[in-house]
């Protein structure tokens, strides 16, 4: 082969190779006309949406076939469209939690649930069989720490009528707990938060309840010194009211010169019993229309006044 023939072939090849040799220069800049069409155009109307968004994901305009617009419109314009819209990406979306997806999840989770016992269908029955209520609070929030110091607080609530207490024990317990007892609802509330862990606070709360219960059944020697000011409710026997009534009646009988009637007979009489009931009602329940009228009637009968 002659050298001039070689040169001719080489120049031919050189001409052919040149258009493909762009690798040493920067690549062709990407332009959207060359990009593939968005996935939305290939989506069927009855597709399974939970496979497009199976988990929480940010908004992808090419995957969501909805003409959503969001943002503040420019003057005499419309809100910006979904392509490249940061507002749509910022906001949390619920595209992974459509009703069919929720139903699917719940159907899978249903096996792990247990039924509530059918016998406990009302609050009263729950109260009757399970008197103690323990209240705890859990906190979920985003932050650097998942712990919340308020989560260790435990509140115990129990109705005193469900505990095995006699009269003296109940009164002593109410005096021991003070403000933690509510008169109207008969509920004792114990709130514990002195321990660092919830389990410890719960144990401490149960320990407090046990100690209160047992201490209230004890009778100390100094409890016999309980005076009238310490009494929770008004007791008519051995009170000033009883003494006054008996005194008055005895004097009335003495002035009428009736044979000596004993105190026991007077106490057992109907008028004195009426008077006793009306005074007790007034003192314990407060002054109401019916109470005051009942007191008036009983006094009239006692002193034999016909008004």
């Amino acid at each position, binding site marked *: 082969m002659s050298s001039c023939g070689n040169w001719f072939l080489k120049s031919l090849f050189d001409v052919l190779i040149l258009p493909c040799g762009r690798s040493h220069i920067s690549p062709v800049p990407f332009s959207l006309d060359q990009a593939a069409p968005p996935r939305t155009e290939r989506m069927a109307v009855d597709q399974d949406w939970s496979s497009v968004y199976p988990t929480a994901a940010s908004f992808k305009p090419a995957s969501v076939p909805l003409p959503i617009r969001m943002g503040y419109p420019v003057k005499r314009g419309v809100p910006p469209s979904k392509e490249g819209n940061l507002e749509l990406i910022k906001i949390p979306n619920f595209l992974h*939690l459509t009703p069919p997806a929720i139903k699917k999840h719940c159907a899978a989770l249903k*096996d792990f649930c247990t*039924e509530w016992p059918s016998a406990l269908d009302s609050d009263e029955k729950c109260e009757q069989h399970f008197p*103690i*209520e323990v209240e*705890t609070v859990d906190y*979920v*929030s*985003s932050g650097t720490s998942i712990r919340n110091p308020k989560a260790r607080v435990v509140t115990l609530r129990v109705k005193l009528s469900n505990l095995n207490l006699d009269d003296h024990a109940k009164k002593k317990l109410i005096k021991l707990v003070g403000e933690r007892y509510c008169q109207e609802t008969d509920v004792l509330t114990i709130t514990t938060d002195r321990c660092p862990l919830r389990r410890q606070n719960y144990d401490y709360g149960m320990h407090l309840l046990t100690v209160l219960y047992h201490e209230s059944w004890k009778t100390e020697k100094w409890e016999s010194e309980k005076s009238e000011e310490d009494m929770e409710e008004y007791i008519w026997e051995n009170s000033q009211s009883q003494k006054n009534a008996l005194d008055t009646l005895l004097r009335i009988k003495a002035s009428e010169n009736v044979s000596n009637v004993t105190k026991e007979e007077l106490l057992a009489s109907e008028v004195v019993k009426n008077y006793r009931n009306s005074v007790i009602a007034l003192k314990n329940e407060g002054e109401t229309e019916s109470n005051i009228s009942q007191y008036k009637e009983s006094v009239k009968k006692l002193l034999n006044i016909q008004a």
Partner: protein
Amino acid sequence: MGAPRSPPRRRALPPWRGRTCGPRSRFSFRAAGRAGAEPRWRRAGCGGGSVRSSTLMGARLAGSHVETQEPKTNPLVSVSDEPETLYKRLSILVKGHDKAVLDSYEYFAVLAAKELGISVEKVDKPPKTIERFTLLKSVHIYKKHRVQYEMRTHYMCLELKYLTSSTAAVYLEYVQRNLPEGVAMEVKKTKIEKIPEHIQKPVWDTLPQVEETEVKS
């Protein structure tokens, strides 16, 4: 047949990592009015199993009477003997800065509760609170020029009634995993319990009488 193997110990995962085998306790409450309280022998999953389950399996394979109405057991479900704790009320308070997000979350939570068979007592929407503060606009001086910021917190309270501990665990995990970004939740659980043994009767009756010793002064 070899010696019965104890059931394989499940790895203890932290609560936010979720569980592959959700425990499902059998509730052993006996009440006066409850009829048909025989325990349901759900077969323990995770292979191996204790003696009881292997004999049951043997019984099934031998062709003895099998309950035909027994539904297909989920291999992930494991039943344990401990009695369930009962929750009288579950109060979920959700707080967020965006009302639309909370509305969507409410729809999701209510639908999830209905699908799982949990009774929703009520859905309350307390009014929003706005925390405002006024700061100086400039770094140095210019006291008359201020800038004001505010933080709006919207609330949504969901109250559920009568849940067992398994159901509550399942529902709460599902609902908490799907909590949106920037939304906080507080769950108030009210558990009901029987009066424990040591509070049934005062202990002084059972203790032996201790003679009071005179303090010699």
